[in-house]
């Protein structure tokens, strides 16, 4: 009986326990870690659900896919549908409104992640009692910081509302453009609070930077490993979260490919299916499934880009690059620092856009010749997001393929968990408090879009199962 159960855990692990990150760790005879797997429930159902729906519905419909970054899906689908309606270039007002929406989303997402989820780890230490190591603990000990987090999140959400129409499930981006501009009143409302917001970004950057530099010795190795990195970059190599072409680099920073048009993503990326997970494992086609996996998200973006086109974030990037010895950074925990560099970048971009009169323009929609297929890419807060659709002559979607950031980071998260587990188990087939804490911290660095990852209290509900060489469960603990 017990064996049956064990098998079920291994082969069909993705039981739908909402809100729990499930990890299984496999040991060899000597109780060394051979493998670690993070089981993620992913909503693949969308790709079927969207079939037959009219294409203009998709940017709104797709937001149902993920309650965590709906705006990224909204914009990525809209970008694909721009191409479907034959629009390669939006009007300046439409392009800038969309960008404002995207930076607003990035801003609120990064702020939420940092203040609510990460700051407890950094302020209290990974090994602190989880009863304190949460956002409530932060609010009690550092009340100003907790308030900042809330205010920054709200600022980003208000930008989303002003551009998309609603904080969640807005309709702003439509095929070929946008359905509204930014009124002067809306603009002035945001400008009023902007300096304070940027001040808070700088303060957050200092926390992330100082922490990383102070703890560099222990962090450098924590869940770290060499990997390739992928993101889109602008034509001139600048970081661009909304639009650009694909670039992949290896662990040393050598380019694997560069400036690949989003429409050709399938010529450089492939997806592998593994028996134990519903989630696919993408890899760089050129390197194959074994060596071709890569990381996406803030760390990958900072690694991939040549520069950032806003002054303060660029200065912060330079400091980061200097701290990592002018080399590509492969430190998992560096995600936090780079995420805050992007937070500041998003803040600076919001400023730039708010001062641009194009946002009050009235030319909102472009038109073109209908096409049957399109793929679009943007950099969501958590990483590269790919939407690919086919639309028939009756305007119905016949095919959808989405690759979300958590899917790109699937293998890296497994690697991080394996690394942390290996460092903590060493010969003892037992799940300790320390192991649980460290696995949680390592997964969190990637900001995966598990529903559990954004648990209201900032505590990630986690289930860890330890399996011996015979596949028997030798220990199981949940937080």
């Amino acid at each position, binding site marked *: 009986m017990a064996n049956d159960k064990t098998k079920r855990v291994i082969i069909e692990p993705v039981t739908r326990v909402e809100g729990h990150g499930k990890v299984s760790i496999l040991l060899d005879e000597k109780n060394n870690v051979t493998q670690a797997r993070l089981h993620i429930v992913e909503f693949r159902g969308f790709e079927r659900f969207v079939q*037959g729906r009219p294409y*203009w*519905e998709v940017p709104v419909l797709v937001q149902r896919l993920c309650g965590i970054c709906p705006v990224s899906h909204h914009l990525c689908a809209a970008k694909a549908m721009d191409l479907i309606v034959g629009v390669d270039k939006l009007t300046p007002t439409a392009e800038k409104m969309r960008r404002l929406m995207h930076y607003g989303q990035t801003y609120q997402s990064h702020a939420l992640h940092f203040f609510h989820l990460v700051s407890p780890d950094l302020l209290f230490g990974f090994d602190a009692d989880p009863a304190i190591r949460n956002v409530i603990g932060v609010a009690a000990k550092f009340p100003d910081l907790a308030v900042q987090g809330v205010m920054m999140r709200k600022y980003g959400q208000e930008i989303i509302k002003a551009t998309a129409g609603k904080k969640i499930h807005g309709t702003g981006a*439509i095929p070929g453009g946008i359905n509204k501009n930014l009124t002067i009143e809306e603009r002035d409302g945001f400008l009023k609070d902007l300096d304070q917001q940027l001040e808070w970004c700088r303060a957050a950057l200092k926390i992330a930077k100082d922490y990383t530099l102070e703890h560099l010795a222990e962090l450098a190795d924590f869940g770290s490993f060499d990997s390739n990195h992928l993101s889109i970059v602008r034509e001139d190599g600048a970081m661009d979260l909304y639009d650009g072409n694909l670039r992949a680099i290896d662990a040393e920073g050598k380019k694997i490919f560069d400036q690949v048009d989003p429409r050709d993503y399938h010529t450089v990326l492939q997806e592998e299916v593994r028996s134990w997970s519903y989630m696919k494992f993408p890899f760089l086609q050129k390197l194959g499934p074994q060596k071709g996996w890569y990381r996406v998200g803030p760390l990958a973006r900072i690694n991939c880009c040549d520069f950032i086109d806003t002054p303060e974030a660029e200065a912060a990037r330079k400091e980061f690059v200097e701290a990592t010895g002018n080399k590509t950074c492969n430190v998992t925990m560096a995600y936090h620092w780079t995420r805050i560099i992007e937070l500041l970048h998003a803040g600076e971009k919001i400023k730039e856009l708010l001062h641009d009169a194009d946002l009050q323009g009235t030319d909102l929609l472009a038109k073109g010749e209908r096409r049957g297929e399109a793929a679009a890419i943007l950099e969501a807060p958590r990483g590269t997001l790919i939407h690919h659709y086919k639309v028939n002559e009756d305007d119905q979607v016949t095919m959808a393929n989405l690759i979300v950031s958590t899917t790109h980071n699937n293998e890296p998260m497994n690697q991080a968990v394996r690394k942390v587990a290996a460092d903590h188990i060493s010969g003892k087939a037992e799940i300790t408090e320390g192991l649980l804490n460290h696995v949680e911290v390592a997964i969190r660095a990637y900001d995966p879009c598990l529903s559990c990852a954004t648990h209201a209290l900032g505590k990630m509900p986690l289930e860890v199962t330890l399996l011996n060489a015979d596949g028997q469960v030798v220990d199981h603990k949940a937080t």
Partner: protein
Amino acid sequence: MSNTITFTIDGVEVTGQPGQTIMEAADAAGIYIPRLCALEELSPHGSCRVCTVMVNGRPQAACTQPIADGMVVENDTEQILAIRRDIIDMLFVEGNHFCMFCEKSGNCELQALAYRFGIAAPRFPYLFPKRDIDATHPDIFIDRNRCILCGRCVRASRDIDGKNVFEFVGRGFEKRVAVNAEANLADTDAAATDEAVNVCPTGALLKKRVGYAVPVGQRKYDHKPIGSEIEKK
């Protein structure tokens, strides 16, 4: 015989003309009676029953019932509101109404009624029927997931457009709006300019490629509840 008819709605005296329905007289008096199948420019149909009122103590459809002298009509009572709420609830679970991504959201009469009645989520179990889409026409599409069988399109096509594009087929749970062609909407003489396309209270019959052109905040029911245009008369 005088040329006016006097009756009461919720104790308020209302006068109307002979031949008027309760709904018509109430509209003229600035009293809103909720409705889904009725529409001023169309002949009454009496099918949705959202307009149910008590007439001398008996439930009647206000959109079809003619007025009479001394009639006692109850419109705004707990009992009536409960009946209407149940009907709206049932309409929601009988179809596949996903307001959160429907392009008619904010302009939809069914949704607006639900808001007016304070319905956040239906109390009955969803039936999730299997319904189809007809997107064959170059400019119009039918999404039967959202059809409430009000028959507005049937009447508008027949009586205003003079085309007879739509017709009901089937009975009971199988009843649906069919098109007057061998196969699909594309094979009819329907056009995007037809009144039939404008009268759908939900998102079942729509012009293509309009989508979400009107931003949130500027849609028909974003600021004023359904019925307020009658109440302010």
